[in-house]
């Protein structure tokens, strides 16, 4: 095989591997939870990160997603979660009656 043919083969294989690694945003979406929980295989993780590096929309989306998760965790972190100022008096009385009964 001439050097040129060898080179063409290498380039073809490289392009094929790129195509295999290239997923859409919709496919990327399906990997997010497993990625954040560290449950992707090495190959899946490399495909995920390959898309992430190339796609500003998914970078932005993932950042908003991470923030939403962090905020919901922080807001309700025990014992700082918001509590109602009052509990219906009927509920308090029902609990006390149930104990007495």
């Amino acid at each position, binding site marked *: 095989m001439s050097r040129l043919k060898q080179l063409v083969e290498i380039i073809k294989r490289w392009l094929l591997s790129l195509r295999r690694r290239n997923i*859409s*945003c*919709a*496919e990327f*979406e399906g990997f*997010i*939870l*497993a990625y954040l929980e560290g449950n992707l295989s090495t190959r899946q993780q490399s495909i995920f990160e390959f898309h992430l590096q190339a*796609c*500003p*929309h*998914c970078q*932005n*989306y993932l*950042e*908003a*997603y991470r*923030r*939403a*998760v*962090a*905020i*919901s*965790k*922080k*807001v*309700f972190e*025990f*014992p700082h*979660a*918001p*509590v*109602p*100022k*009052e*509990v*219906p008096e009927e*509920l*308090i009385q*029902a*609990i*006390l009656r*149930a*104990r007495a009964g």
Partner: protein
Amino acid sequence: VDESPDSKLIVALQGGDNHAFERLVREYSPRMLATARRLLSDETEAQDCVQEAFLSAFRAIGQFEHKAALATWLHRITINAVLQKLRKEQRQREESIEPLLPQFDQNGRREEPCWGFSQSVEQIIEQQNLRELVTAKIAELPDQYRIVLVLRDVEGLDTREVAGALGVSESVVKTRLHRARSALKTLLHPLWKEIRQ
């Protein structure tokens, strides 16, 4: 000797003091009701669970060993009461979450504006009324998604525990969790600024 207010209250409760039981209910029921409300959208069901939780606590107070704070112990009992209710009912009602999920064009590309994040999560947390806003937004999620989100992300249960508690498979829990987080992200858009691209 532990002289903390909780410790005195526990001694009084273990001695069967009626005033102590009333104090316990008045002091801790708001937090327990808030916990039950996050998981159950129906107010009557949430109140039933709080009542059930207090009755369990009254029965077990004799064995309370001060290893956990009273608030943490009651919180755990409330979660168990809610889980028991959810298990018993095996809710099957499917509500659509689709309008809150990300949209893609025919080539699988995201159709969503980009967002600008000028504040850190810590700065956002400090905002006034944020807790009320997030509480209200989480309440907008359909039951089956909100329950999984709260159990996993707020209460810290793992996927297996949530699956067991709800009587569904782990893969169902994962799907619901991801969708619930995606939907919550959409509902929290007012917290960041849209960047037109």
